[in-house]
């Protein structure tokens, strides 16, 4: 009873206060809200844990786990003796974050000072890129500057990410312009752009590795987690070049080009027994460490990209072909009188009437009539096979960018006169390398070796072009060219028997062959007893008066060969002028 009285009292009280009599609906409502909340919690928990887990994990990782590249070094390039020709060294670039860096002079001044910049300059840069978060202030600073900036950035720790250093690699070429054409260069990202850097980019470059790292909210790397792929450093290249010989050849060529005011010049030195390229130089040159504009074609490796008519330098091969095909003998005599020779309506001329001459005199006097008469007796197909066997008309196996194959028309398209002009080196075009290679055949006992840029390269192709006897005979004849009454006494090297042939070629232009523009050519080998080197020198348009191959190109040959003999310790084979140590040499 008590209870009911109490309930009644409550009811009355509520009525007096004008409040609802029952909480039932309110309770249900609150319970319902809690229920929905609980269910949605469970559902979303299940959804996140089970259905969305991949996505969420990824998003989380994206915020904290990053992939960082581990850079790979670009391989070195060395010469045959291990001297370094190209090396990548770390350099630093300085950046700022204009959004985090105040324009305050107090903050900017120390950085400007460390960089050796004017404060205004830095401020100007800052305001120009004020919306950006990353701007290079100075790229590739010197190590001292980098050190100063690093120190400054350490003392600036409390404001992380305002400025700093970025490591980059820069390719240096210690030998400068001497190896410019051969090596080429890399771009700002250290990728090969020209020359061997381009050809062997894949080998040199290596492969950057990747790894996972943990980052904090400011994208700083906190720790390394795992390696995704290892970095593979680039391989070093060991070339066949001799940096000393290359340097001397370059200097010699540069000097001669300046002295004769020539447009351009090239020279190639080969090891005749292995096909290795020991030196390859061109003028004009460029410094791969500096500006790389191609003004006047100075980036071109002319020894490989430019072709020319070899002129009289071709004659030794016609004599060799004649000997091989049996149309002449070593002691044959050829009647070149009266100094000209009609082939159909065309005429081949000598400078003067040489009369009846032997083969050695033919080469020494460089008789066009003599060479034509030999060539006309050879079957055109055989002659073509012989000449292309020497490597003319097809690109070498070097695979150098922009390399020319030269031109040697098929014999089926030859007119009669073409066979004659071929004999004195017109109507076909060759590169300096091809010419050196062909002379190397004479020096290597008649065996052709494909040229290579690598030391001890076993992929060198060898093929016999002529018999050892023929090669030796022609080589002996060529020795007289370098003699006192030959066309190139300036090609002589003291203490050594040298052999070679000059060429003075009229340049061909739209109006036909010019009478005042020449190419001076000299190609030769040495020492004759046991040949080591073959070399070709081409000087384009010498315009200081002299233009004969023997006057312009031959001195380069002699200079470089003399250095080569010394550098490679070649035993002298002509000791007449030298003092021999008698018994008790002092």
């Amino acid at each position: 009873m008590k209870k009911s009285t109490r309930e009644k009292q409550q009811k009355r009280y509520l009525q007096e206060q004008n409040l609802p009599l029952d909480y039932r609906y309110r309770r249900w409502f609150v319970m319902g809200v809690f229920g929905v909340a609980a269910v949605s919690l469970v559902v979303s928990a299940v959804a996140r844990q089970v259905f969305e887990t991949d996505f969420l994990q990824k998003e989380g990782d994206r915020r904290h786990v990053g992939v960082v590249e581990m850079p790979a070094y670009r391989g070195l390039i060395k010469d045959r003796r291990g001297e370094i020709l190209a090396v990548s060294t770390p350099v630093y670039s300085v950046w700022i974050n204009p959004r985090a860096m105040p324009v305050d002079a107090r903050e900017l001044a120390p950085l400007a000072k460390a960089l050796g910049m004017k404060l205004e300059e830095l401020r100007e840069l800052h305001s120009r890129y004020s919306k950006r978060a990353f701007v290079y202030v100075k790229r590739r600073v010197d190590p001292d500057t980098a050190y100063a900036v690093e120190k400054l950035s350490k003392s600036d720790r409390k404001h992380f990410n305002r400025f700093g250093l970025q490591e980059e690699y820069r390719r240096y070429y210690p030998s400068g312009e001497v190896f410019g054409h051969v090596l080429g260069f890399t771009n700002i990202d250290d990728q090969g752009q020209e020359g061997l850097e381009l050809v062997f980019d894949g080998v040199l470059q290596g492969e950057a590795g990747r790894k996972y790292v943990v980052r904090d909210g400011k994208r700083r790397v906190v720790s390394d987690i795992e390696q995704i792929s290892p970095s593979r450093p680039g391989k070093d290249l060991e070339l066949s070049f001799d940096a000393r010989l290359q340097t001397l050849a370059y200097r010699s060529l540069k000097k001669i080009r300046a002295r004769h005011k020539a447009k351009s010049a090239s020279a190639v030195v080969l090891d005749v027994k292995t096909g290795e390229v020991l030196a390859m130089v061109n003028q004009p040159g460029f410094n791969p460490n500096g500006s790389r504009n191609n003004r006047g074609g100075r980036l071109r490796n002319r020894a490989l990209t430019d072709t020319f008519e070899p002129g009289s330098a071709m004659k030794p091969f016609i004599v060799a072909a004649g000997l091989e095909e049996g149309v002449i003998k070593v002691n044959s005599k050829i009647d070149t009188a009266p100094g000209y020779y009609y082939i159909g309506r065309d005429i081949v001329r000598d400078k003067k009437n040489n009369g009846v001459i032997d083969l050695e005199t033919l080469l020494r006097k460089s008789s066009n009539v003599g060479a034509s008469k030999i060539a006309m007796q050879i079957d055109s197909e055989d002659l073509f096979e012989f000449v292309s066997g020497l490597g003319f008309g097809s690109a070498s196996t070097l695979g150098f960018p922009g390399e020319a194959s030269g031109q040697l028309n098929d014999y089926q398209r030859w007119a009669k006169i073409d066979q004659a002009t071929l004999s004195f080196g017109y109507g076909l075009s060759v590169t300096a390398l091809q010419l050196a290679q062909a002379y190397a055949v004479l020096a290597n006992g008649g065996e052709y070796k494909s040229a290579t840029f690598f030391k001890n390269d076993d992929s060198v192709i060898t093929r016999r072009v002529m018999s050892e006897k023929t090669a030796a005979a022609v080589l002996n004849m060529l020795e007289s060219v370098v003699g006192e009454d030959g066309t190139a006494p300036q090609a002589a090297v003291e203490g050594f028997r040298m052999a070679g042939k000059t060429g003075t070629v009229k340049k061909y232009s739209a109006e036909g062959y010019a009478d005042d523009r020449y190419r001076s050519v000299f190609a030769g080998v040495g020492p004759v007893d046991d040949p080591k080197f073959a070399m070709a020198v081409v000087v384009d348009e010498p315009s200081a008066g002299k233009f004969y191959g023997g006057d312009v190109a031959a001195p380069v040959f002699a200079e470089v060969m003399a250095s080569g003999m010394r550098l490679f310790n070649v035993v002298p084979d002509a000791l007449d002028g030298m003092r021999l140590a008698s018994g008790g040499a002092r």
Partner: protein
Amino acid sequence: MLVLAALILLSGVAVAYVKYESRMLFTEMEKLRTYRDELANDWMLLQLELATLARHDRIEQGATGTLKMHMPDQNEIQVIYGK
């Protein structure tokens, strides 16, 4: 059943431990790698310095200038044959 559960638990712990270990080792390796890279960088700089100091024209200058050397003339050379 109980044994299997225990084994699962054990292998779970082992996985976690090995993962931890591998991360530690990787961190260690990274440290060493950084060190190696620093050394390699130094080496490259030294190589560059060497190549610059040993430039041919510089050596020639030293030889002909400071040391007053010259290429031997033909009559200054004696050839000695070894046996």
